[in-house]
Each structure stands twice: as structure tokens, then as C-alpha cells.
């Protein structure tokens, strides 16, 4: 097994005085998809936000490639390769697709920006057709793809996705998940995937993290979690 590139140790965090995560520890290994599942309100989204630095951290730490990044501001984390893709407000609705990508490449040199945007458009050809459309006129699936594309422009190491398939039609959701698995397989990225649709996430993921009431209930191969009927029924709505 490869080295974990991200380690969370005893993270306790929340929003102001309202605690959501209690002593959460887990690891993310290189080039895997870690599926984070659990019932509503269990702290899955908060987990991602905490790693990225958008919550109040009471204690614990986040180590990324051996470096303690717990208190770094989000834009620095983005710069060093930790990407976070929230469910909404993840693109600039009033800007065109092209402009969105331009903004994603904001900190890059012009030639490099052009190359990377070209790269990313080849990954998602549907965006190529919509270059001059405003992001708000894109369909839900297209918008998520744009958000993903914008993340990829910055060549992140580890991408944390918060319920990317929410509100998408099943066909579109499947397509998106396929794209996500491509990120692991072809682009060798590391993914942390929070999903409400537990089955799809577990089938896609290599390892899984089960969150219940702000604590880690299970961390291990996702296959095993899928087959654990008890847990599946109780927490995940799996039949």
C-alpha cells in the first residue's frame, strides 16, 4: 500500500461554538478514491470543509505530504494542491465557460494557462461546445463538469468533492461519476468523494469512510462496507 498523502488526526471542528466533528481521524492514500458516506447531518460536508479550512477547528491536525496544513488559509491550500469542490456556487454563473476557465488559471503564466485549459477542454469536450455560454445557462451536469474542469486546471494533487451528483438526473450522475473515476485511473489523482448516494460511491471508491454523528464509524475497504448488510441498512439506506 502506498503512503497516505493526507492524514487527519483527532480533528474536532464545527461552526463557531457548534461542534460537528468529534475526534475524527482518517487517511487518504495516493491515487485512491476515498468514499465518505453516512446519514444526513453526520458531518461529511463538514469534514471536507475542515480539511480545506472553512470551519472552526478546535483541535487536531491535517497533515498533507508530511506538512501540517491545518491552519493555512484556503487559497494557500489550493495553491499547494489541495482542491475542494463544494456542491453549489462552485462556478461563476455570470461568466462564460471560457472566462470561468480563465479565472481558474488566474495565477498561471499565460502560455501555461492556455495549455492547461486546452488540456481540460479535451477531457470534457462538451465544454468546448459551450465556451461562450454563460455558466448559468449550462445544465446541472455541465456545470459540475465545468467546476471539475476549473479544479483540474490547477493540477491538484487531491480533490475533495462534496456531493457532486446531487440534483443530477441518474444518467448524468453516472456520467459524472465515470469522469471522476477517470481522474483516478488516467490522471492518477487522489479523490475524496462525499456522496449521499452511498451505493454508487462505495462501488466507485477504493476505501470508504463511514461517518455517523460526527464520528468515524468505519474506515476501510469500501467493498467490505458494501457487503456489511447491518451497517448498510442502518446508516446508508442500503437494502
Amino acid at each position, binding site marked *: 500500500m502506498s503512503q497516505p498523502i493526507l492524514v487527519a488526526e483527532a480533528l474536532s471542528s464545527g461552526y463557531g461554538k457548534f461542534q460537528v466533528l468529534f475526534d475524527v481521524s482518517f487517511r487518504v492514500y495516493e491515487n485512491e478514491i476515498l468514499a465518505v458516506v453516512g446519514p444526513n447531518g453526520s458531518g461529511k460536508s463538514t469534514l471536507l470543509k475542515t480539511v480545506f479550512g472553512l470551519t472552526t477547528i478546535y483541535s487536531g491536525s491535517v497533515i498533507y505530504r508530511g506538512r501540517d496544513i491545518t491552519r493555512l488559509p484556503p487559497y494557500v491550500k489550493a495553491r499547494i494542491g489541495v482542491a475542494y469542490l463544494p456542491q453549489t456556487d462552485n462556478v*461563476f454563473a*455570470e*461568466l462564460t465557460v471560457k472566462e470561468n476557465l*480563465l479565472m*481558474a488559471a488566474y495565477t498561471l503564466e499565460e502560455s501555461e494557462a492556455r495549455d492547461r485549459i486546452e488540456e481540460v477542454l479535451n477531457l470534457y469536450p462538451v465544454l468546448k461546445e459551450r465556451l461562450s455560454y454563460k455558466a448559468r445557462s449550462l445544465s446541472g451536469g455541465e456545470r459540475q463538469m465545468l467546476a471539475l474542469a476549473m479544479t483540474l486546471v490547477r493540477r491538484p494533487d487531491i480533490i475533495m468533492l462534496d456531493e457532486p451528483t446531487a440534483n443530477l438526473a441518474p444518467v448524468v450522475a453516472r456520467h459524472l461519476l465515470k469522469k471522476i473515476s477517470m481522474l483516478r485511473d488516467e490522471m492518477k489523482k487522489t479523490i475524496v468523494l462525499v456522496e449521499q448516494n452511498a451505493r454508487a460511491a462505495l462501488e466507485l471508491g477504493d476505501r470508504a469512510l463511514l461517518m455517523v454523528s460526527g464520528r468515524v464509524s468505519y474506515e476501510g475497504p469500501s467493498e467490505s462496507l458494501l457487503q456489511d448488510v447491518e451497517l448498510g441498512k442502518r446508516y446508508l439506506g442500503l437494502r
Partner: protein
Amino acid sequence: MLVLPSTEYLIYSIAYGSSLALLCMGLTLTYMVTKVPNFAHATLAITGSAVTLLLIDRIYHVFYLEGGASSLGKTPYYTLYLIAPISAFLIVGLVALIQYLLVLRPLSSRGVGIIGLMIATLAFDIILVNILTLTLYLMPTAYFGKLIGPSLKGFDASVSVLGISTSFSRLALPVIAVTLAIALHLFLTRTKFGVSLRAAIENPDLARVLGINVDLAYMTSWFIAGGLAGASGALYIFMVENFKPAVASLVIVSVFAGSILGGLGSIYGALLGGFLVGVTETFVVVLIQNILAAYGLPITLTHYQRLFSLLIVIVMLLLAPQGLTGLISRVGRGGR
């Protein structure tokens, strides 16, 4: 017998509409950035007017008067119509930037809400107007006896176009307005920095994560908005009878009317709205007045010019607060 307003008046009306359009663009821009309507915006414009006033007083009066100190006559005087808006753009842009840095940004980060920020802009307006008045009062003049209350109409080069006699500022205003609008559009859509402004205004948190300097974006927006106001005011002064800084308090409502009419979320809407309000206040009012007169109802409506813009404000706010652009996009989306 219906008497149409003269072509000369039409030109005046278009010029006035253009000056309002510039002001509305700036107001909408600051609103989009700070979410607060800036009551001091018209005063910013008037500061630009003061720039022109001082330029004429100190420098250009020489070029204008026949037999003045310079034997070059009027020709160099025409540079005023370029120098004034440019200098006003820079100076007033700076003043607007100061308003953002010293008033709005600190108060906003201390948690003051919208109403409080509105009051703060009112306070800044009061202070700015009074400082301006004080300066104009006390500043030693080279030509004018007093810098408060002069009419600059006499200093507006008269020009004859296609047989219609008008003044140069009235021709210059629409040209400048269109030029600045196009320049702004190009800046906001074709330059990386300009696009980042739009991004920062729309979703500052996402922009920050992408490494965009949101604060710089906000400062630039305010500078530009102030610049637009200054440029507008620089030429607007030629259309005012009795110039004193307090004139701003009359204009601000028309500016609000234009921005609200256009929709406070769209700069292009502001351009349109401002122009429409300007033309309505002048040309349309006179037209209606003449129509009524033709039907035997001689009512003087020109005194009530501002009533129209005030009514526009109230009606739009109550019925269609998203303005014209809001209505248009709703119709557009209806087809989706």
C-alpha cells in the same frame, strides 16, 4: 398646433442623458461591489465639475477670451474637452477610492449593515459637498470673482453642426459616454484583470480561493466608478445655470432612477436606464408639455422634471425592482 421641441433641445437632451448614463453605470458598479447604493455618487460627479471649473479659471480662460494673453485664440481651448474629463476621471476616481477605503471598507468589516452603510454614504456625501464648497469659496481665483455660482455656459464653445447651433460639450458628452462605455466593456470582457473584477464581484469567496485579489478588484471598481462620475461631471457643468456643489443633491435622485430602471445588477442596464431617464426628464417632458398645449392645456411641466424620475424610482421599486434588464431576462428565460 403641436410644436415639437427644437433639434437643439434634442441635442441637449441626448447630452444630458449621456451624462446620466455615465453616472448610472458608476452607481450600479459600486452597488454591485458593496451592495450599498452610494448617495455620494452625484457629489463625486460634481467634484469632476469642479475640476473643469478650476481648469478654466486657471488656465483655459486665457485661451477662450478673444484678445487674451495668448494669440492662439480658441483652438487650444478645445483641448479642455479632453483634458477636463481625463483629469476629472483620475481625480474623482481617487476620491471614490478614498470613500471606499476610509468609509465603506472599514465600516463593512466592522459589521455595519446595509442601512448603516447607506447612512455612512450620506455622511460622506455631506462632508464631501461641504469640503468642496469650502474649497471653492476660499480658493484664490485667477479669473472668476467667485467660484461658487458662476455659469459656465458662456465658456462652452459654440458649434454649428448641419445648421444647428449647439455647444461643444453637448456633442462631446455622448461621444465620451459611448467611448467610456465601450472601453469599460472591453476591459471587463477582454482583459484577464477585468474578468477577474466580474468574478470577484459575483463570488468573492470562490475568487479568493482561485488566487484573485478580491480587495484590489473592489478598489479598482470603485476607482472606475468614480472616474466615470468625474468624467460625466466634468462636462455636465456646462449645462448647469448656477453651479454650486449643492446641485448634486438634485441630481442624485435621477441617478438612482436611472440605475433602478436599468436594474441594479447590470451595468448595461444602467447605461440604458440612465439615458432613458435623462431623455425623459428633458425631451419627453417638453414634448408632453407641448402636446398638452396643443390640446389647450397649457401646463408648465418643466418645473416638475425631477418628479418624473422620482416617480420612476417609486414605481420601479414597487413593481419591478429588478429593472428593465430583470424584465428582459425573465422574458428571455421564459422560452427555456
